[in-house]
């Protein structure tokens, strides 16, 4: 394992130290691993998210004006514990309640639920939205359901923008639900990631094969296929998305790198995704290309598509100022 780290069990802490030093707009509680905005906005609905580390800039990199109020990074690929989430929720409560944005994984769900219960007991109004956009996973009563991946960024941005307008918790939760319901993702891995504590790649992938339908935790995908061109791999991903939620109207598209894929390749993939969308008669009106919802050092990409409407577009365009996403101020 070759990593720029001090020690496997110091990775998260060290990164948080760096985050704190690089971004004076954030308040970082290193002890409890809670990242909050340095300046809060009384009366605003608070947005809290969190999850295992290893997906940077998600979530801590999305704390700031127009997105989250607080984030809880867990250990690598391990959901945060209730204590962290409780502290973050209390910090983010500015008198109008708090929305928990939860990616649909058993661990995240259990820990957020425990925290929400305890916060409710302490009198904080908490609503939760479950993000489950990954069409690679069968959504059935007999499974853990779909994973939450790239759509989390959309939910955090758009719900964050609405919260900034002073909207009440119910409305913020509703738009978060709406964004999730209108979003779908699919991912492809060229290489496995390496979890620092494990010290070796999570899975072995021959030079001529790719994993299709991967998540963001180094989970193997649904199947392996021969390495193919960017165009063919983009088609595999888009077929899966389109098969689940037909591409129609105005779309927000994220072509996301898994952490180890350079921008030059992601732009190439975006060109193919755009051609695919055009072929279906839909239009990409907003887009994002880059490493946003990552899986440590994995090479690969995911595509997330959200069907926009005028309100969602306006909220997407609204100013945002976080370490990982910034425009308009």
């Amino acid at each position, binding site marked *: 394992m070759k990593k720029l780290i001090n020690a496997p069990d110091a990775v998260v802490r060290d990164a948080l130290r760096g985050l704190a030093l690089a971004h004076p707009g954030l308040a970082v509680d290193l002890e409890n691993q809670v990242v909050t905005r340095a300046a809060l906005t009384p009366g605003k609905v608070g947005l809290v998210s969190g999850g295992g580390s290893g997906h940077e800039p998600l979530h801590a990199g999305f704390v700031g004006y127009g997105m989250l109020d607080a984030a809880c990074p*867990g250990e690598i*690929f391990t959901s945060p*514990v209730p204590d962290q989430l409780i502290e973050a929720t209390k910090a983010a409560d500015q008198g109008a309640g708090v929305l928990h944005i939860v990616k649909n994984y058993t*661990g995240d769900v*259990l820990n957020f639920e425990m925290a929400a219960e305890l916060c409710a007991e302490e009198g904080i109004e908490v609503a939760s939205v479950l993000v489950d956009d990954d069409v690679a996973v069968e959504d059935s009563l007999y499974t853990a359901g779909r994973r939450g991946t790239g759509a989390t960024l959309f939910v955090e941005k758009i719900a964050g923008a609405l919260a900034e307008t002073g909207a009440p918790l119910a409305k913020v939760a509703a738009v978060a639900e709406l964004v999730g319901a209108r979003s779908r993702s699919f991912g492809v891995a060229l290489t496995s990631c390496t979890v620092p504590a494990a010290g070796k790649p999570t899975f072995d992938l021959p030079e001529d094969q790719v994993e299709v339908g991967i998540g963001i935790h180094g989970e193997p995908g649904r199947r392996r296929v021969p390495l193919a061109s960017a165009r063919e791999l983009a088609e595999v991903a888009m077929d899966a998305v389109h098969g689940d939620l037909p591409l129609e109207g105005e779309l927000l598209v994220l072509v996301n790198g898994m952490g180890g894929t350079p921008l030059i390749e992601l732009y190439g993939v975006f060109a193919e995704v755009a051609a695919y969308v055009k072929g279906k008669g839909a239009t990409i009106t907003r887009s994002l290309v880059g490493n946003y919802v990552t899986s440590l050092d994995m090479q690969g990409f995911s595509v997330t598509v959200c069907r926009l409407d005028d309100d969602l577009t306006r909220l997407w365009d609204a100013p945002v100022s976080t370490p990982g996403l910034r425009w308009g101020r």
Partner: protein
Amino acid sequence: MAAGAWLKECARVVAAERERLTGLDAAIGDADHGANLDRGFQAIVAELDLGDEAEPGAQLVAAGSLLIRRVGGASGPLYGSALRSMGKALSQGADLSTALEQAVEAVEKLGKAVEGDKTMVDALRPAANAMALAVQEGIGVREALDRAARAAEEGAAATTPMRARKGRASYLGERSEGHRDPGATSAALLIRALAATW
């Protein structure tokens, strides 16, 4: 009854099997199960009073709470709740078999998993059942615990061919078949540790 000895033995076994558990999780999960449990049980050993004087029920409740506070992931809340339920039952005077039953029910309730879903329940449920049956048959607690541990080990081994329906492994669909579940494996280790120390 020595809850402290059990917890210490759990910590020892989990540390020794850490790599293996993480390796099993790498195959059908996210390669952190060994690290997760190790973090939790090391905290228990380091931070709790595991002496023989303390009340076992209270010790287990404290240990479960600490797992919840330190582990994260799926296994933190699940094992944490299990220990808390077990401890509460013991504190209320339940026998070990009943307490184990409570622990397993807590996992089932929280995780909404049943036997055959390829989770820790596949080790825990048979263990609780074997223990209850043995007690019913009038068998002594040491032998009953040994049966429970064996049932857990068999249950864990039986997860290999299963297709996962809960937890991260369920994302793999049929590709989860042929791999032993990490949580069932750790559960069998913890029950074996119980049999060895109680």
